């Protein structure tokens, strides 16, 4: 025991400590260039309740179902489902690439749609990526609004949705107009909302199942899971807007 105490003491004693000042100055300059992003969170008490509900939902419903889903669904099928939904919703990145005056990405997404819908078996296989070198651009209306200078508004964490902002609500709403389901099911007289929500739920559930370990680690990767998710959302969203 005494040996361990000596060892700890000397290890701490001999741990190198370098000059703080130069690094602190450099770090401050770097951070001033990239300030910590902030988002207004006036609904925090309510968001924290919703966050807890979502976490319980994940732990006791979503995770067990996702484990069974992962067991019975081969990974290539899961990837195929993800590819098919992205392909089906291609008008969203195509339109938003045009709104952002990015003709190159609009062209790439159109090529992806044509190639993947035909050779890629209705979008099940993403052949455009290895064949043409065109990756998904994931451009959407939230990104277009961000690029146009619209702020996030306020932060929210609604049940069954997760982190988001007021701007994202408008973005998701506008994206609906570019989804073929909206028009296909309207014209056939069926309420399209159910289908839109169904596809949305499938897309997100499939994505969670494919990345189950990452969602599962939330409580050991963070001191404050609510803050961690909010910070990750902000940084991801900023990165998306910068692209």
């Amino acid at each position: 025991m005494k040996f361990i105490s000596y060892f700890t003491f000397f290890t701490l004693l001999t741990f190198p400590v370098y000059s703080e000042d130069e690094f602190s100055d450099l770090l401050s300059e770097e951070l001033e260039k990239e300030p910590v992003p902030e988002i207004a969170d006036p609904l925090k008490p309510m968001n924290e309740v919703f966050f807890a509900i979502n976490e319980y939902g994940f732990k006791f419903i979503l995770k067990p179902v996702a484990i069974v889903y992962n067991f019975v669904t081969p990974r290539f099928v899961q990837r195929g489902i993800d590819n098919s939904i992205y392909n089906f919703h291609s008008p969203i990145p195509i339109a938003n690439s045009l709104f952002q005056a990015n003709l190159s990405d609009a062209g790439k997404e159109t090529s992806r749609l044509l190639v993947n819908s035909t050779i890629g078996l209705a979008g099940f296989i993403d052949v455009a990526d290895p064949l043409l070198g065109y990756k998904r651009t994931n451009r959407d209306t939230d990104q277009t609004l961000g690029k146009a200078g619209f702020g996030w508004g306020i932060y929210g964490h609604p049940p069954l949705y997760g982190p988001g902002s007021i701007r994202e609500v408008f973005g998701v709403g506008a994206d609906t107009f570019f989804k073929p389901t909206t028009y296909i099911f309207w014209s056939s007289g069926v309420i399209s909302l159910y289908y839109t929500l169904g596809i949305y739920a499938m897309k997100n559930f499939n994505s969670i199942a494919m990345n189950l370990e990452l969602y599962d680690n939330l409580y050991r990767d963070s001191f404050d899971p609510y803050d961690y998710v909010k910070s990750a959302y902000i940084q991801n969203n900023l990165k998306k807007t910068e692209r």
Partner: protein
Amino acid sequence: MNIKHQRKKIMTLVIAVSLLLQSPVEAQANPKDTIEKAGSQIISILKNKSLKKTAKKERISKIFYETFSRQRMAQAALRSNYKKLTDLQKKEFAKLFARFILEFYLDKMELYNNNKLIIREAVEKRKGKIALVKTGITLPNGNIAEIDYSLYNEPSVGWQVYDFEIEGVRMSTTYYSQLASIYKKGKYEGLKKELKRLIKLY
């Protein structure tokens, strides 16, 4: 052999081992090489099927501590609060925080255990004192996970990582507000308690 002599021997051994453990690593020539070397070593360890999980962890830990700077990571994550700690608290926090980041890193590394490291870009900034090395890891499904490393050219040591960003999410930014809030409520003891709690969960 008398007790006094034996104690002296133990003390000498403790000091020798401690110094050996803390000796500065071989100076790294440039930031790109630092990341390339560490990354390729880690990937080859992860791919080595003959190694047991604990052996893999040990070897990766050694590379991690040679490549990542405990003190600079702590400074980047705590920012202004770092200066409020005593020297002993700084050392202890740096060790605990680095251990937490190592566990975090090992946990994620295991998810990407059959990959290839790509150096996308390496840029030196601030008169060669800071560098950003942008890397990508090819995932089994063909997608590339972007991991960018920020390095500081530590005098007499060389290039060491003080921050990293996984898919747009930066380590220091993500933990800064959480640690600041813990420090505000529980000062240094609060930080220590929370770090120990999370380390136990891995």
